[in-house]
């Protein structure tokens, strides 16, 4: 706080800038965080060592060897793409009827949409990794468990985003369809679906993107794919880990750009 007195004797007070509080909190958090890291025996310098191992060739290798490893990742990469795509598609299709039931403008009764929404919230609290573990429990660590896990993950996100989109549509055509004698499902198909279709497709692309990102950690529970190429090489071959991470980085960036472009055209 600072007090100013003008030449005419008027006093004006400059209010306290809240940015200092934010900065103070950040510094405190940083100190706590540093303690935390220290207690786990990982120092910042060690992170530096690992990073260096990841993004430079092994002592006996050349940069050529380093990058040639990327080409051996073709199969796991394709697997990851397939799993992510199947998971996005299955989850998103299953999400449609559930989003229908979660929309308060379609289901007028609270007794239907509130329980459905609660269920959706529950599903979304479970991390993708745990959902995949559920898949692993049922079908073992194959591609199928990845698809099951990613489908559940996609389903949770899509159902939530979709019902929120449904609640913003113009309900006038829906009323018109009901007046022609259409039932709820028919009226939904002909009055609501055409309105949310572009949004749905754009969400689908976004979820595909999320799935590829999530699949990077699936390797840690043994599911095949690019994630496994990462987890298998820790800690023996950090250079391979770095190469795989770079590949993943490029892949996600490409899909992000594609999806931004496609979604822009859909609107």
């Amino acid at each position, binding site marked *: 706080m600072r007090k100013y007195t003008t030449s005419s004797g008027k006093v004006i007070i400059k209010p306290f800038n809240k940015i200092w509080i934010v900065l103070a909190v950040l510094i405190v958090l940083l100190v706590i965080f540093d303690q935390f890291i220290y207690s786990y025996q990982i120092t910042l310098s060690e992170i530096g060592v690992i990073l260096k191992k990841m993004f430079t060739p092994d002592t006996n290798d050349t940069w050529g060897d380093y990058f040639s490893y990327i080409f051996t990742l073709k199969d796991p990469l394709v697997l990851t793409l397939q799993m992510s795509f199947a998971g996005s598609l299955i989850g998103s299709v299953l999400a449609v009827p559930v989003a229908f039931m979660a929309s308060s403008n379609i289901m007028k009764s609270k007794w239907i949409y509130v329980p459905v929404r609660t269920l959706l919230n529950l599903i979304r609290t479970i991390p993708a990794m745990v959902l995949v573990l559920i898949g692993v429990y049922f079908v073992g660590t194959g591609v199928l468990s990845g698809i099951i896990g990613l489908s559940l993950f996609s389903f949770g996100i899509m159902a939530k985003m979709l019902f929120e989109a449904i609640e913003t549509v113009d309900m006038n055509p829906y009323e018109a369809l009901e*007046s022609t004698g259409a*039932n709820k499902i028919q009226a939904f198909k002909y009055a609501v679906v055409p309105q949310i279709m572009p949004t749905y497709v754009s969400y689908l692309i976004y979820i595909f993107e999320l799935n590829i990102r999530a699949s990077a950690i699936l390797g840690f529970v043994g599911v095949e794919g690019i994630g496994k190429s990462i987890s298998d090489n820790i800690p023996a071959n950090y250079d391979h880990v770095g190469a795989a991470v770079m590949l993943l980085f490029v892949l996600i960036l490409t899909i992000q750009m594609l999806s931004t472009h496609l979604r822009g055209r859909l609107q």
Partner: protein
Amino acid sequence: MIKFVNVSKTYLNGVEALKSINLEVNDGEFVAIIGLSGAGKSTLLRSINKMIEITSGQILIDDVDIASIKGKELRMMRRSIGMIFQSFNLVKKMSVFNNVLSGRVAYHPTYKTILGLFPKEDKLLALDSLDAMGILDKAFARADQLSGGQQQRVALARALTQKPKLILADEPVASLDPITTVQVMDDFAKVNKEYGITIITNMHHVDLALKYANRIIGVKDGIVMYDGPANGINDEMLVKIYGRSLKHDEVLGETDA
């Protein structure tokens, strides 16, 4: 034939929209309901296809009491009644053709309509309806590319595609300009005469109601003040219905279109 017997409607907020209405509308009539906004015109109209449920009394359509019907039977009843809205209520992002075709969904099982399977007759019927409304060439345009008057014609075509006995119109021309208004009203007259479809419409513009309808129902505070031929309406009667003389926005004025 539609028959109202002592029909009343009280909304949850206590507003009495209809007070013991008794009416009969015969097949083939063109009826206009006039009155102030809030007089109960819309409630009266929407109670006929049960878009609004009445509180007491009976509404009989071809001697069937509609109070008791629900579910599938209600949908069967609704599909024989077309409805036109002030804001057209089309799916703007969908083609005109699909909008019109959607008038047929109640004739088919859900799974077929979900897959978008319509018999060829339905598609031809939709195109015929568009042709009758003079907008066949717009069939595959997106609905939002059409002007307001054209959109209301699409809505009329959708209603025609239902093969209805009756069309209910809730302020069909209230959001149109005067020239388009006359064109759309001409279409209503055509639907009434050529297809023999009964028309019941709410009208904001009194002169239009008098020009097109052969019967006027004047409503004030949920009570029928006048029910008779259009030529029985005079200034005195209008004051009775409106509680005052007409404001200039309640008449359309001269249009020679």
